[in-house]
């Protein structure tokens, strides 16, 4: 009896550990499923539309002309992303240095939760504020017809990427050993000289990783750009023109497509490209972060 009981217990614990294992690898399963579905649904598009025409096509007009040129979406995404990074880097790195190194402890305790709140504001709310407040402002300042431009998107996306950039940069600053600071001060350097010549160079690789993670957020952001960048899939090279990003195209057009059709499949195709781009950005930046943590 006792033997039987212990055997049953063994079987039970074996089953439990298998079940837990299955949950443990869920993240791998999900990532693989996502990739599989993006590929499966975009096959129809890639097999019937010439790939070169897709990559170099200058018109995205799936319903009217039946043309699926990727360039306008790519330039749209690049324009918005580049603008956002230019704004986000000084704000993010600057705030991280202030919060992580210079601010008194009490001030830091107030600032950090405020930055965390920024991360929780839904992107649709940021987009709404963009429509109501920022777009009219841009329209007046630059004296243009409509305020829904690449620049409007860049500004809002920059702020949305800040929680990521600030928190990871701050981690990098905190990881700089205190003895470095002591050594610098002992050599007669002022607090600012220590920050600027010792702490920042030591933390700089972490800051690069932080900016890259922020970049991943910006490239993948959907609702805000859909709402405030003007929804115009044309190739433009000015921040004061309306554009259409990859993400916004998917969100805007998926509702009107015939499921299983060419247009439907093309949206999965650009989704696949988006997935690969963000995956690479995240992969590289996390390698960076892990290497810093290990050393």
């Amino acid at each position, binding site marked *: 009896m006792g033997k039987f009981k212990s055997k049953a217990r063994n079987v039970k614990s074996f089953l439990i550990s298998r079940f837990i294992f299955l949950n443990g690898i869920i993240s791998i399963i999900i990532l693989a499923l996502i990739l599989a*579905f993006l590929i499966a649904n975009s096959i129809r598009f890639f097999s019937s539309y010439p790939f070169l025409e897709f990559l170099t096509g200058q018109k995205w007009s799936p319903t009217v002309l039946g043309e699926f040129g990727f360039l306008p979406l790519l330039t749209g995404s690049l324009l918005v992303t580049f603008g956002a990074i230019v704004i986000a880097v000084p704000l993010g790195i600057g705030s991280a240095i202030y919060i992580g190194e210079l601010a008194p402890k009490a001030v830091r305790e107030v600032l950090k939760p405020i930055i965390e709140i920024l991360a*929780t504001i839904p992107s649709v*709310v940021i987009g709404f504020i963009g429509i109501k407040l920022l777009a009219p402002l841009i329209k007046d300042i630059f004296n243009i017809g409509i305020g829904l431009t690449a620049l409007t998107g860049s500004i809002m996306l920059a702020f949305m990427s800040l929680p990521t950039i600030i928190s990871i940069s701050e981690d990098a600053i905190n990881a700089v050993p205190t003895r470095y600071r002591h050594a610098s001060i002992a050599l007669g350097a002022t607090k600012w000289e220590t920050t600027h010549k010792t702490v920042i160079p030591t933390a700089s690789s972490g800051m690069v990783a932080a900016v890259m993670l922020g970049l991943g957020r910006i490239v993948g952001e959907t609702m805000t750009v859909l709402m405030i960048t003007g929804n115009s899939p044309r190739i433009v090279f000015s921040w004061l023109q309306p554009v259409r990003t990859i993400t916004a195209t998917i969100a805007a057009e998926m509702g009107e497509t015939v499921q299983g059709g060419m247009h439907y499949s093309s949206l999965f195709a650009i989704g696949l490209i988006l997935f690969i781009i963000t995956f690479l950005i995240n992969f590289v930046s996390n390698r960076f972060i892990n290497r810093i943590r290990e050393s």
Partner: protein
Amino acid sequence: MSKEGLEISKRKKILTEKFFYFFLLFLTLVVVAFVLGIIIYLIIKGSGAINWEFLSQKPREGMRAGGIFPAILGTFYLILGTLVFSLPIGILAAVYLNEYASKNRLTRVIRLSIVNMSGVPSVVYGLFGLGFFVMLLKFGKSILAGCLTLAFLILPVIITATEEALKAVPDSYRHASLALGATRWQTVVKVVLPRALPGIVTGSVIGIGRAAGETAPIIFTVAAFSQPNLPNSIFSQVMALPYHLYVLATQLTDTPEGVQWGTALVLLMMVLIFSIIGTAIRTRSRLRRKE
């Protein structure tokens, strides 16, 4: 160098230092002003529209008047369903990583996938949910499809938070339980998980906040443009607050300003409350541990 020269160079140094301090402080204040500005402005513009009727009634006149109750309720259903799927899976995944897994290649790949999952754009989750749950499994545009999609989206949050909480449970607890003859699973269920509960709750609440505010993943999987009738099964479509705000702001632009700002404020408050609750639980359990 003369004594005066030294004085001047020192003063110059102090001046540069002051300049940079102020510059960095200024950059930080820009960020703070942005966050507080949005919240305060939303409260000022939105609070006038919020009353009991707005929160408890169905929309009228093509959603241009009346309340937003169906959207609030829809978001509530989505949150609940998302938790039902993501909580057990997320907790067990964290239990595997912290209590069962050995340090090998597979474990490293799992950790890498979790990090990469959280970097996948939300609109890609939406595409996946459409292809898998809506089309292949034939759930249609439904609460079920939407909740499963959102559950996948917030899994990394729940796994990471739970694992942190499990790590904080001292090994001596596990050793004591195992020494008393408990199996590993019994130890996990009766000793480790109860101790880690506050951390798990924090992670779930933060995850919920994220799920409640997401729009892109629900557009193709569950959200209805207008669905004044309340849902009667898990295969119904529902209205949801974030999507409703999107519709009001971009498609029904002639809606009275008050209704738009009110909807935005309700959504923001909902998300903020979750975040505050999560942070409060975390802070309390940290303080207790210190005692």
